C-alpha cells in the first residue's frame, strides 16, 4: 500500500528543468540501497503473494484461477469490497471537511499559535492507534461522553447505539487519520503566494470567491495527496475497524485475516489481498487523474 501515497507526491514535486537529465541532476546509484531494500522486503514478498493466490486449493497442491473466481463471482465478497471502498470514501470526505478549515487556520495563524496548533495536529500521531481507538470506545459507549451529554441535556431518553455502528466507525477513523490530511494541506497552502489573495481582493472578489477560485485550485495537489493518504489508511485500518466496527461488520482487512489465520486458507487470503490491492490502486489512479484534470482546468 505504501506505493500508493508515494506516487501521490508526483504532482507536488517540482518538474525538472528541461535540458538536465536525471543522471546529471542526481546520481541514480544513490537510490541503490533503497532499491535493494524494496526488492528484498517488498517486491519478493509481493511476488510470493501473487504466486500463492494462484493455488486452486487451500492445501496448495495445484494451480488455477479458482480463488479469484470464488471472490469475483460471489456477490457477498464483492459487497465486502464495495463496503470497504465506500468506508474509505466516507472517511476521506469527512476528514477533508474537518481538515481543510483546520489547515487554513494553521496557515493563517500567527507564529506562536501556529506552533501550538501544529503540535495539536501532530499529537495524535505520537500516540498508538490502539490507544486512540480505545479512547473512542470510551467516548462512543453507552456510558460514554457523548451519550452522557445527550442524556444530561434531555435530548434522548435512552443511550444511543454509537459503538459498533458504521457512523461511529467513520467518525473514529476520521479523527485517527486527520493528521494525514492536514499535513499535506498545510504544505500546499503555505506554498501559495499571499499576494495572489490580495490581488484577487483588489480585483473585487469576495472572500468566498477568492477561496473557491484561487486558494482551492492552488492547493489541489495537497488535497489529492491528503485524500490518497487518508483513503489508503482508512480502508486498511484493521485495528480501528475491528474494535469500533465490531465482529459483524466485515471489511476487507478482517475478511483477509479471517481466511488466513482462522481458516488457514492462504490461497484465498492471498487472492483477497491481490484483489484489494488492485482495487485500491485503481481508486488511487482515478483520484490522481481527477486531481490532474481539475488542476489543468483551474490553470486554464
Amino acid at each position, binding site marked *: 500500500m505504501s506505493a500508493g501515497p508515494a506516487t501521490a507526491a508526483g504532482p507536488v514535486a517540482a518538474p525538472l528543468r528541461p535540458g538536465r537529465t536525471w543522471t546529471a541532476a542526481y546520481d541514480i546509484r544513490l537510490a541503490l540501497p533503497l532499491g535493494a531494500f524494496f526488492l528484498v522486503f517488498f517486491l519478493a514478498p509481493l511476488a510470493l503473494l501473487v504466486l500463492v493466490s494462484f493455488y486452486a486449493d487451500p492445501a496448495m497442491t495445484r494451480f488455477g484461477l479458482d480463488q479469484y473466481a470464488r471472490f469475483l463471482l460471489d456477490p457477498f465478497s464483492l459487497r465486502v469490497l464495495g463496503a470497504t471502498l465506500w468506508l474509505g470514501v466516507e472517511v476521506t470526505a469527512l476528514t477533508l471537511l474537518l481538515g481543510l478549515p483546520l489547515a487554513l487556520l494553521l496557515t493563517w495563524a500567527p507564529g506562536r499559535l501556529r506552533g501550538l496548533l501544529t503540535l495539536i495536529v501532530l499529537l495524535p500521531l505520537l500516540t498508538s492507534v490502539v490507544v486512540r481507538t480505545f479512547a473512542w470506545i470510551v467516548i462512543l*459507549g453507552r456510558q460514554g461522553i457523548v451519550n452522557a451529554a445527550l442524556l444530561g441535556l434531555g435530548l434522548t431518553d435512552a443511550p444511543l447505539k454509537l459503538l459498533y455502528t458504521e457512523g461511529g466507525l467513520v467518525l473514529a477513523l476520521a479523527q485517527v487519520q486527520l493528521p494525514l490530511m492536514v499535513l499535506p494541506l498545510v504544505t500546499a497552502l503555505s506554498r501559495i503566494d499571499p499576494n495572489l489573495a490580495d490581488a484577487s481582493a483588489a480585483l473585487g472578489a469576495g472572500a468566498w470567491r477568492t477561496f473557491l477560485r484561487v486558494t482551492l485550485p492552488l492547493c489541489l495537489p495537497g488535497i489529492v495527496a491528503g485524500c490518497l493518504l487518508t483513503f489508503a489508511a482508512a480502508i486498511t485500518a484493521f485495528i480501528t475497524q475491528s474494535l469500533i466496527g465490531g465482529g459483524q461488520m466485515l471489511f476487507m482487512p478482517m475478511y483477509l485475516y479471517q481466511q488466513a489465520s482462522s481458516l488457514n486458507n492462504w490461497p484465498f487470503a492471498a487472492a483477497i489481498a491481490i484483489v484489494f490491492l488492485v482495487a485500491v490502486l485503481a481508486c488511487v489512479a482515478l483520484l490522481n487523474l481527477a486531481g490532474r484534470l481539475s488542476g489543468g482546468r483551474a490553470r486554464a
Partner: protein
Amino acid sequence: MPLHRRSLLAGALTLGAAQAFPGLSRAQARKLVFATFTGSWEEAHRAVLVPAFRKNSGGDVILDPMLSVDQIAKVQAARANPPIDVMLHDPGPALTAIAQDLVEPYPVAQSAHYGDLIADAQEPMGPAPFFQIVGLTYNPEKVKTPPTSWADLWKPEYRGRVGITNLNSTLGTGFLVEIARMHGGSETDVEPGFKALEALKPNLAAVAANPGALAALYQQEQVDIGPGNFNAIQILKARGVPVEFAAPKEGIIAFKTTIHIVKNTPSKELAFRLIEAALSPEVQAKLMQSPYLIVPTNRKVAMEGEVAKVLARDADELKRKSVFQDWAAINRGRPAWIERFNREIRV
C-alpha cells in the same frame, strides 16, 4: 600496514552487525520462546510459571503472547527454524497444529507429572495444563437475577443488552455449538444454532471481534450479559468492574488448553522443562489462586477458593458439570459456519 578508511569502515560495520544481530554468532544460546495467550493468561504465566521454570531449569524464557491461530501461522511460515518453541492451543487449533505436523509428541515417559493429570488432560501430542471454562457472564448491577440457562439470553428484558463474539474465536464457536445442542442440534448439525442466533438478533448489542474486546464491553456497560470465559472476566473483576460468572444448567463448556513442543525447536529440553513446570502441582495450585483462578488439571491439586465455589469442588464434579465438545467434528464444519455467520449475522 597503513589503515585505510575503507578497511576501517568495513571492520566497524562488521562489528556493528555482530552487535545488532547477536543471533549470528551464538544461535544456540537463544532464549526459549513461549507463545502464551494475551491478557490474564500472560499475566498469570509471567508471575507464576516463568519463575518456576527459571528455578527448575536455570534457563530463561520470553513470553510472546498471541492467539492460537496466529501461533500456527507463524510456525507454519518457518517450519525448519520456528520462531516459537512452545505453543499454547485451544482445542480446535491444537488439532490443526497436530494435523499439519507442527508439534513434537510429548516425552510422556520422562514426565514426572503427566500420569497425575486427569484423563481428559492426558494428550500424548501435548498435555493440557489447564481448562478454560465458558459460561454466562453478566453485570450484576444491571442483571438483578443471576442467569441460570443459555436460554435466558433470549429474554425480552435483555433487548439490546447481549454481547457475543463472531466465530473466529473458540468462545464464539463453542457457544454456537452449545445453543445448537440446546435446540436438538450437535457438532455436525448447527442449523438450529443459526436459527437461534437469528432469533437473538433483537437482543444483540454487540458482536465483538474477539473475546478480549467482548470483555472490555462489560467495562463500558455496552453489554450486560452474554457467553463469556471464566478467566477473561477475572482480570476485570479484580479491577472493580461489576461482572460475574454463572454456570448455565445445561452445563459449562470446558476446553482443554494444550501445551506443545514445536517441531524443529533448537531448545527441546528447555521446552520440556517449561511444560513440566506448567503441569506441576505447585504451579497449578498457585495459578488457581486469585486473581488468576485458572482451572487445574493435575489431580494432586485440590480445588479451592472461587474455582471450587463457582465451578466444581473436584475433578469428578467438574467432569460431571462440563460439556467437552468434539472439536475434530467442529473443525470440519467451521469454515462453512464462519462463511455463513459473515453472511447472515448482521446487527
